[in-house]
């Protein structure tokens, strides 16, 4: 589903399109999304579960780029993500 506006006639020019999401932005969004699900589940260790999930599904460069961004302090991430990424072994 998508939040939209509907207006009469052909008026595309009135719509201001958001700037496309950057790759790093996508990584942050996805990591935070995973962490939110894990945190919401009272029966799991959210840090361990987030680390396991990202380790299982994310390609190595995605993981290393997110780690690098955390180290550089250039992204705002859920604390659970930060802790989970610290646990992940990222291939050289």
């Amino acid at each position, binding site marked *: 589903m998508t939040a939209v506006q509907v*207006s*009469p006639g*052909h008026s595309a020019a009135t719509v201001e399109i958001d700037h496309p999401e950057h790759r790093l932005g*996508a990584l942050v969004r996805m990591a935070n999304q995973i962490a939110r699900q894990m945190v*919401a589940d009272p029966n799991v260790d959210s840090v361990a579960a987030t680390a396991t999930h990202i380790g299982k599904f*994310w*390609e190595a*460069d995605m993981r290393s780029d997110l780690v690098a961004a955390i180290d550089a302090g250039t992204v705002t991430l859920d604390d659970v993500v930060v802790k989970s990424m610290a646990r992940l072994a990222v291939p050289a």
Partner: protein
Amino acid sequence: MTLSLSFFGDEALQELAVHEHDMGTPPANRTREGGLPTVPVTIDGREVLVEEGTSVMRAAAICGVDVPKLCATDSLDPFGSCRLCIVEIDGRKGTPASCTTPVAPGMQVTTQSPKLQRLRRGVMELYISDHPLDCLTCAANGDCELQDMAGAVGLRDVRYGYAGDNHLGMEKDTSNPYFTFDSSKCIVCSRCVRACEQVQGTFALTIEGRGFGSRVAAGFNGSFFDSECVSCGACVQACPTATLTENTVIEMGQPRRTVLTTCAYCGVGCTFKAELQGETVVRMTPYKDGGANEGHSCVKGRFAWGYASHPDRVLEPMIREKITDPWTTVSWDEAIAYAAAKLKDIQVRHGQGAIGGITSSRCTNEEVFVVQKMVRTAFGNNNVDTCARVCHSPTGFGLSQAFGTSAGTQDFKSVELADVMLLIGANPTDAHPVFASRMKKRLREGAQLIVVDPRRIDLVRTAHVQASNFLQLRPGTNVAVINALAHVIVTEDLIDHRFVQERCEPIEFSQWAAFVSQPENSPETLEQYTGVPAAEVRAAARLYATAGNGAIYYGLGVTEHSQGSTMVMGMANLALATGNLGRDGVGVNPLRGQNNVQGSCDMGSFPHEFSGYRHVSDNTTRETFEAFWGRPLQAEPGLRIPNMFDAAIDGNFKGLFVQGEDIAQSDPNTVHVMHALQSLELVIVQDLFINETAKVAHVFFPGTSFLEKDGTFTNAERRINRVRPAMRPRNGKQEWQVVAELSAALGAPMHYDNAAQIMDEIAALTPTFAGVSFAKLDALGSVQWPCNDEHPLGTPIMHEGTFVRGLGRFTPTPYVPTDEKSTRRFPLLLTTGRILSQYNVGAQTRRTQNVRWHPEDVLEIHPHDAEERGIHDGDEVTLASRVGSTTLHALLSDRMAQGVVFTTFHHPVSGANVITTEHSDWATN
């Protein structure tokens, strides 16, 4: 009738004999519930044991005696109107109709006698007295039951001339683009009317008038096109005369050759007879013994196959340096060498991981398998993904967590024993119409229905079907609704404790029960999010838990959400808690969008999994593949489709092989997708047409239509069906051959002589397919995986006795509102879907007469929302989100609640995915 079925193999024309015998009436026991007691009867001196309730006509057919008939056929309930099937029964007066007379123990039946012969001849004489005698020029000549029966009863003359009133001058209805209704040839047997009611469940046809004036009518004196008719073809199939005839048969004549194959549209996977003259298709007719469809079809599979020979098809390979250059047609060798050189060059300059591939859910298992193999061996990475990423990977994730297997639990036939169906986020009458007909049939028999959907789909209220509960939730609140249902089931103790105790993980159950029992998961609390009245939720929960067999069916309305995987686990929890698993009539069943979604996922299309859903980091599995393929394989997951796009825009990903999918039109956020594609140095597209993706490609490999393919599709019920070539590849090569040659050019040769050898390799490497081979499929018709030593004939119902993972696992499913929310700037919520006549991005259906039903995508908007904006029905409107905008015509409709709008994405000109955003499932995005 025995058909000689032929198909083109790789070496020579192969023959396959298939028996299709009309038994006259359906079997007494139409389900697998258990055998009925048998009774002995004697037919023309031959004794036979048949199930109690069997008709005399069917009993006769069982012992090889075909009683003459016209109004009877084994797909329909007996009707007893034509009087041709009369028989004599010892001890009974008169000559009863054999179709409506059930057998009785010891019954002695005579089907042939001078008296019966005389009576039948008299009946036929009356029929023929009002029927044109144009057999030699009739389109049905050679395929006409009336003609056959006239011969069978020995009709030699007709005493009644045409001087009196007759129907010979009635006008034809040619309004339907695919078939003609010629009322002058109608014998009013009602087979078409009954097929529309009993098989299709639409009730579009009727017999109007009385006595001599009785005629078949579509709606209220209207044309077929303007009626409720959905063009499924069931009436044409049922017609015993030339009254309802395919236009292609009228134009071309009767087919001479038949190839048994599988439809390439939705995930139902209907088996069809491709009926041909030479290599030209005359018609496609549904196959009675097809496991998924049992002789039924929809407008797409039955009629919309003309795209395969559409002039838009590209049949020769093409290359170009830049996407602004014109295409250059080249030989296969040149195209493959060009693509291989470009891919190698990219890897030299940008690294091994700079290229990848996308497999297609429209292609065969064999075609998909070789693409992922090429990526893993020739590309040397795991950057392979499938279009099912967007729609159904949450199913794989969610169901594997709960049950241990990434697939639905039942076969379609199982619905015949469901007592209540919980239908969530799916619109089967449009998207899975043949299965919808099976659902409707069961609902007419008394099963109940709960619909959970933001849109009032047809099944909420349609002919002779009405949902008991319609939970019209706000988009994005599926998980809240499933938790509310679970809350009621737990707090009102509607749990199947015995099932839970015997079959489920006890600690996880306790944790889950405690979680859903919390007040924040009550229907009353969650109503503020879902918009569904708490009382409705409570009623639906009680119904699902207590009505008997409860079956969950769901579609993309569940999976294409930020909590798609969570919702799948939530539905699994509900089924576990109520014991609705592991037997007929129950289960958790995804309705797959495309023909081979299940198969493409099974075949190792995901970047983290080999075939059979085994993680690439699993050393034992990886070493097995390495040994078989003779190449080292990566243990790290590769890029998924959205990650490929992001990496392309970021400059780290440079080359993409796209098999049979139009990602530029089908994937969300078109602007983003196009930005990614245009950032690539090399896009290779293997497809039938220059689609939206091919417009930005550098290499075009012409693909094959399903009529040319040789392989298998796996449908939503895990059924592996054969796809047999009805004609040679029009492009000169099977798609798997092209991929194998590209792989060889990259240094990783594949050694296959035919598609059967690819399936043999799949079977050797994939435990759930271990027992599958083309030979077995040809012998059995189809099998449902797992098919291995433990289940040599396949597994229609999964998890009987034990789950694949051992014990069923409950998982708490907290509701997390999506970030995609309506705002002051974007106050409405858009949902998208499919309609009956069109299919996905429309590449196939837009190139058929189906466009007459849906020439453009429209925006369905609630009248209140329209009025607030000064929009009238039919007005041009602009639909915009934060990522893009498009223009559509408005269709005022109260099928959605206020605040929700709906459109389809079948036409590239409207491009609904220009609007949709990147929010997808958290677990599998």
